[in-house]
């Protein structure tokens, strides 16, 4: 009986192919929208997580001052090189301690120029921020101590200044400083916050302090914690040491802050997940709208086929047999819409993932859910018209033209 109903439903749908297609368009779009939103949202979440991991594993970032609110910072003294030495000496949990001073500068080679950020640090920066060299070499002890004019280029800067030429051994002018390119950094791509991480030039700390910033300050300290050590413990040790060194009494607040990148990572991925859920919910509204379209067309269909229903009832069809016939038709219609929606969604997400440069994450769960939901929409919105058909009076129905 069910296979028969299915056959009948498919035939009835094919008879009104255009009308059926327009009817299910709402479902198609609804299902596609839900799947695309969730797929892209999960892709974005994955990307954020990956890129934050790419910043450096077990990374702590120490900056002077406390964040007071959006955009506001407490005025606090910068760190000094002695702080770096103390951290290296006294906190054994730290694998790398990298001081950093960052300035924006225009890099010039021949007639090409590129506005970028210049960071002064040492080789532990590479370790803490998980940079690897694509070519050339890192700084030597001598270069670091003497503050030599040598630099490592990020991939974006290399591309913009040198194109296809080999930059190694060439000179780059940074404002009034001319330095030799000794190494190239492996590209990392965009950060979770949308910043191009490869847009940087790395110099010895002393070089930047002397020739560009003009003071002895260390603006940021990047810390890499040994994988087997507790991040919490390391963070507490660092805070303790810095409070001591900065002469902060027990009653005073820190005038610096230590940020755990993993906390920031979970916060950011949490945000994208909430956004994904929200967009998915908005998209599912269109599924409901599609359901109303199905109900509408099923009511029209029942009216058009009143005589057919009368004949079936006279021949001996019971109420529930007529009910199931129309219900099956509605469900076949809406699930077919669901299937089309899934195909559309796969194509659209593949395309959009490429355009938006977000990884494509196939979530079979959400696809299954969207399909079940579309079938449920058919049952929900097909029931009322089907019941109307089943309850027709056969005598009245047969008389209708």
């Amino acid at each position: 009986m069910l296979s028969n109903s299915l056959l009948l439903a498919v035939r009835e749908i094919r008879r009104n192919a255009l009308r059926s297609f327009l009817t299910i368009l709402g479902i198609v779009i609804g299902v596609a929208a839900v799947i695309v939103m969730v797929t892209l949202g999960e892709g974005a979440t994955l990307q954020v997580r990956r890129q934050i991991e790419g910043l450096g594993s077990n990374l702590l970032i120490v900056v002077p001052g406390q964040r007071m609110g959006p955009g506001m910072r407490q005025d606090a003294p910068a760190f000094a090189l002695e702080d770096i030495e103390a951290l290296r000496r006294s906190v054994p949990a730290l694998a790398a301690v990298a001081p950093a001073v960052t300035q924006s500068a225009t890099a010039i080679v021949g007639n090409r120029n590129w506005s970028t950020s210049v960071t002064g640090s040492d080789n532990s920066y590479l370790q803490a921020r998980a940079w690897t060299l694509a070519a050339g070499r890192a700084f030597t002890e001598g270069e670091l101590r003497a503050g030599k004019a040598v630099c490592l280029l990020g991939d974006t800067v290399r591309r913009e200044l040198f194109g296809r030429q080999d930059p190694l051994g060439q000179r780059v002018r940074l404002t009034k400083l001319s330095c030799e390119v000794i190494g190239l950094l492996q590209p990392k791509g965009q950060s979770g916050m949308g910043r191009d991480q490869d847009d940087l030039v790395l110099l010895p700390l002393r070089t930047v302090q002397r020739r560009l910033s003009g003071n002895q300050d260390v603006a940021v300290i990047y810390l890499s914690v040994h994988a087997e050590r507790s991040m919490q413990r390391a963070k507490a040790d660092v805070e303790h040491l810095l409070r001591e060194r900065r002469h902060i009494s027990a009653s005073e607040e820190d005038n610096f802050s230590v940020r755990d990148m993993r906390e920031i990572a979970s916060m950011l991925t949490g945000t994208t997940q909430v956004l994904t859920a929200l967009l998915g919910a908005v998209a599912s509204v269109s599924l409901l709208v599609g359901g109303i379209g199905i109900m509408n067309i099923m009511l029209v269909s029942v009216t058009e086929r009143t005589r057919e229903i009368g004949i079936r009832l006279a021949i001996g069809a019971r109420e529930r047999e007529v009910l199931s016939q129309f219900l099956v038709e509605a469900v076949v219609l809406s699930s077919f819409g669901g299937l089309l929606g899934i195909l559309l969604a796969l194509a659209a997400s593949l395309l959009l993932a490429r355009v938006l440069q977000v990884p494509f994450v196939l979530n079979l769960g959400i696809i299954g859910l969207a399909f079940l939901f579309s079938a449920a929409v058919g049952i929900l919105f097909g029931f009322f018209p089907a019941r109307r058909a089943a309850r027709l009076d056969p005598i009245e129905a047969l008389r209708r033209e």
Partner: protein
Amino acid sequence: MLAEPGSGALIELMAVTKVYGQGAAAVQALRGVDLSIATGEMVAVMGPSGSGKSTVMNILGCLDAPTSGTYRFRGMDVGAMSRDERALLRRHALGFVFQGFNLLSRTSALENVELPLIYRRVHSSERRARALAALAAVGLRDWAQHTPAELSGGQQQRVAIARALVTEPAVVLADEPTGNLDSARGHEIMALLRSLNRARGITLVMITHEPEMAAYAGRVVHVLDGLVERDAATGGPSDAEQ
């Protein structure tokens, strides 16, 4: 369920009334109809329009329930049955032929005839064989794949008769089966119905307002103003028209 009771009468109407509507708008369609039909009879129900003959047919066909009085089909009280029980009774014991044929459009003759067997859960291969046999019995074996739109009125009515016969029902109810046909086609259909009545012993009740069609029946019941006015044998199934 379909066991024959002792009384012998297949169909028994006793003091059946039918009122449509309520209060001031109420219309008394039947005012106490008594009618008894035995297995194998061929009965014509005649009467002017508004006489109540269609209501009699609807009640006999279990499409409608009497307001009062008793309708026994094979001894079972149809008036006490639910909508679904009546549907099952129609499915298993009754066949219908309508004035307007009432075939499913855009559906082949074969599938139209198969339709009642689908509700009887007959397996598809057997269903097909029985439907083809029923079409052969009405002389439309070669028209099985044609849709109603491709058939003449007389052929459509034959398909409808095949559909009524295919379940081998106890009773076939025909509501003005020749009403939409010209005289020659009408006589063909009547001859077919009578031969089926004789050859297969199918009880046949039909409404008509044409005396020459009623003459095919062995018995004519005249209905007037909601009552049986006259109920007479025609002297056996007539051969007058042959």
